[in-house]
């Protein structure tokens, strides 16, 4: 039987995939780096346009079980382009664009074509992941995302630390995939379906099996989003990897993990909220607390950002703790936070990438005096991450998450979050304050156009969203 495939629905994925191949080939013919970079930016922009083109007339579906093979009930499709998918694809493509801009200046010792090819492969994985609505496609997409990342982390071939980071990431990732697959097999055994939309209640004697399956799937995604206790890889890998790759891991890879988690929990296991709701609540509370407490102790800028991104994962998990109450709203809150976080965190990473040789937080002393715009931008991003005005964007993101948690009635988690925002403020503020203190040494400033545009794009985005958060929220909160 021949199935029709909606290429329009797949267009963002196809554009990125073909562009990745083209870049790899072009590198083989020794096309200059600048041309490769321009091509990559153009391809991602084109994919972004394709995402916007798909907005009218959604949802688009493809890879569906043919009508002759299924009984009554909802249409089981493996690939669905709805609001959720489009929002995440938009976030991922925009973030990838910034990551590529960050890379063009900072990765001089890396073969650009291969690098871009690997990034594009991983992006293809995420774009597919967010549209996947069956468990097999989810796993395949997750692996498409993960495999190139190992290579990306190890890209600095002669750097021992990078190699160690890659091995660590590889081992952790393989184990998490194994656990995830085991969980999926249990769920399949209990329900007899792979489509998340078709997973329903099971017989009483299968409930323990189902519960075990759900816990394992949550654990599997927990590795991806660096939730405690599956977070150990994050600081070492972030530190060892090239900085743009660390940014990629902390934003794009994490967005993929949260999308997958939201898909399986909210769509697949919506009737099992009593199983995963409390589990997520505890994970979220422990993740944000541990992340913040560890970040307090860091003196190394990248390790601080790594632990802070662990803590931020906790905030993103928190709305999902509501379980079956107001699940749609909770998912919307998580997506909104991921979107806001993507901009603020990429912004911080962009500035830090530009000042790569500055390793310790202490080295940033006086940056705002040497380079007022970059210093102000970094301070702004840090305050956004802390969620304090003038970083109103971050404050609104926090309000969204708090509201999701409070609406679901998990008040204790909201109080834990409240205490955590205070811990978080301390280290963000300590860093931001250093920027304005008198400088200690001389500094060389990065001058490249790609770097400056990466900072400018994220700063402009953060500023606009601080005045009009509605621009992003109307997309993210209209899910469901």
């Amino acid at each position: 039987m021949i199935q029709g495939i909606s290429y329009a629905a797949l267009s963002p994925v196809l554009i990125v995939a073909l562009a990745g191949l083209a870049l790899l080939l072009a590198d083989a013919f020794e096309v200059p780096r600048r041309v490769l970079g321009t091509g990559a930016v153009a391809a991602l922009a084109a994919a972004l346009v394709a995402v916007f083109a798909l907005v009218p007339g959604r949802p688009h579906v493809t890879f569906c079980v043919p009508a002759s093979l299924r009984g009554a009930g909802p249409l089981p499709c493996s690939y669905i382009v709805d609001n959720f998918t489009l929002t995440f694809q938009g976030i991922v493509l925009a973030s990838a664009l910034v990551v590529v801009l960050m890379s063009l200046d900072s990765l001089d010792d890396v073969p650009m074509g291969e690098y871009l090819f690997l990034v594009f492969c991983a992006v293809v994985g995420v774009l597919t992941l967010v549209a996947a609505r069956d468990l097999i496609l989810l796993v395949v997409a997750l692996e498409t995302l993960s495999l190139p990342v190992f290579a990306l982390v190890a890209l600095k071939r002669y750097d021992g630390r990078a190699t160690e980071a890659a091995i660590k990431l590889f081992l952790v990732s393989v184990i998490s995939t194994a656990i995830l697959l085991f969980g999926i097999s249990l769920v399949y055994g209990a329900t007899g379906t792979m489509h998340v939309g078709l997973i329903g209640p099971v017989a009483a004697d299968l409930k323990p099996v189902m519960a075990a399956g759900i816990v394992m799937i949550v654990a599997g995604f927990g590795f991806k989003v660096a939730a405690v206790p599956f977070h150990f890889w994050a600081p070492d890998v972030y530190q060892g990897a090239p900085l743009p790759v660390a940014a990629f891991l902390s934003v794009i890879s994490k967005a993929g993990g949260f999308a997958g988690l939201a898909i399986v929990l909210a769509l697949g296991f919506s009737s099992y909220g009593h199983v995963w709701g409390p589990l997520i609540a505890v994970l979220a509370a422990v993740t944000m607390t541990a992340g913040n407490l560890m970040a307090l102790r860091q003196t190394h800028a990248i390790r601080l950002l790594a632990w802070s991104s662990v803590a931020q994962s906790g905030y993103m998990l928190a709305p999902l703790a509501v379980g079956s109450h107001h699940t749609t709203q909770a998912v919307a809150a998580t997506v909104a936070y991921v979107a806001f976080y993507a901009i603020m965190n990429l912004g911080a990473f962009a500035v830090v990438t530009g000042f790569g040789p500055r390793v310790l937080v202490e080295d940033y002393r006086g940056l705002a005096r040497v380079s007022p715009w970059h210093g102000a931008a970094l301070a702004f991003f840090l305050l956004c991450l802390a969620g304090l005005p003038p970083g109103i964007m971050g404050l609104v993101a926090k309000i969204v998450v708090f509201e999701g948690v409070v609406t679901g009635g998990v008040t204790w988690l909201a109080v834990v979050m409240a205490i955590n925002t205070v811990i978080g403020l301390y280290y963000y503020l300590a860093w931001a304050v250093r920027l304005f203190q008198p400088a200690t040494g001389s500094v060389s400033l990065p001058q490249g156009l790609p770097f400056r545009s990466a900072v400018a794009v994220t700063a402009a985005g953060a500023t606009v969203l601080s005045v009009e958060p509605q621009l992003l929220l109307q997309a993210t909160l209209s899910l469901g």
Partner: protein
Amino acid sequence: MMLILLLLIPLVGAAVLAFLPGRIRYGLYVSGLTLLAFAVLACVFDYDRTERMQQDVDWSWIPALDIRFHLGVDGISLPLVGLTVLLTFLCFVYLGRHPDKHPRMLTVLLLVLEVGMIGTFLAQDLLLFFVFFEVVLIPMYALIAVWGGPERRHAAYKFILYTLLGSALLLVGLLILGVNAGTFDMVALAAGHGTGLSHTVQVTAFLLIGLGLAVKAPMWPLHTWLPDAHTEAPTVGSVLLAGVLLKMGTYGFVRVALPALPSGAETWAPYLGFLAVIGIIYGSLACLAQTDLKRMIAYSSVGHMGFVLLGIATLTPVGVNAALFGNIAHGLITGLLFFLAGSIKERYGTGSLEGIGAGMLARQPHLAAVLTFACVASLGLPGLAGFWGEMLALVGAYRPGAGLPRETFVTYMVVAALGAVLTAAYFLRLLSRITHGRRVEVAEVADVRPLEWVAWTPLIVLTVLVGLWPKALLDLTDAPVRALMGG
């Protein structure tokens, strides 16, 4: 539109200054313009309908979260906004004589601070209120951390971490209130008087909101950030911190917590009153033990805000009116006291009573006279502003709201009255050690300078006026308070 203008003038002023080389004088003009805008607002304000929200601005801001840009002014907000713009303006006047490092940054921060303070008193949407509540944190932090005394970094961190913890809990409480009531509109919430909110929800929400506001107010035992912050902050920081920022906490009680959560308030009021009374006694006793002028005034704030909180805890119109009156009186008098403390510290190079020495009346008669005036006003001399707020709070405690244990509150009243006596004791002790006594010769120091007169005279005049005609202020707040309290 007047209200938008009131926020826009300092905001645009700050934004423009970020790109221009500027001086304190620029801030003087901008805050003067804001003061002018307030004067116009005070003229067009309808004094016969003080309980109504006037000059309403209600724009959609973040519809996805149901956050509206909703501003309004009534008889409760008007005096507080007036206090804010006046004190900010006087701070710039004062700074004109005291050139400091980084004048441009100082001006920007003060103007942003002004936006946050005005916005808090005008906001009529719970989350907008919260956003403005947060806006003041970073500027005040920077004021303390950059222009403060030797222990400034520690004090600044203590200030921001404490108050952020408060406001994070406040956010949770506000969300519980708003989500369960189905609206974030403060006017609708106040009109609803807690209808549709279960007792449990009200108790939880009042606890969280109350904790958040109590840190700001500050209420004993959450006050420990205050003495450090005040001691280390520069003069203008102390003035605005004591004069306006503390009021944001008590204002929140009156505007949000009491009207929207009446049954939660009833549950917690005896505890609130208890802690308020402890604050009064504790503040007075702590003052007796202080050797530093600024630290002593800071602790006296804990005591005075205790009276304000006691007034709120009575849940009666009399008590709440007393609280709002006490807010304004404390803003005027303590603002003046911190100006004086700053000037004295600058002249003598030290804030310790020992270092200043006795006999100031002989050395600098004018400065000592103003200090004496501020002290007796602060200790609650009848005829000056400080008296009415404390007296009415005691009257309110004598007849607390229905449903509150009367014996308990009468006990509070007696203890608080003792606290008022203690207040007199430490201020008189202060005066006897500084202004009176045998003249100690110190290096030549100037008496009150012209610019200082300009900055202080409005506060002195208002303290006398409000003290002699308390009715003017009470008439303004009484109708809205009765409307908020439901009758």
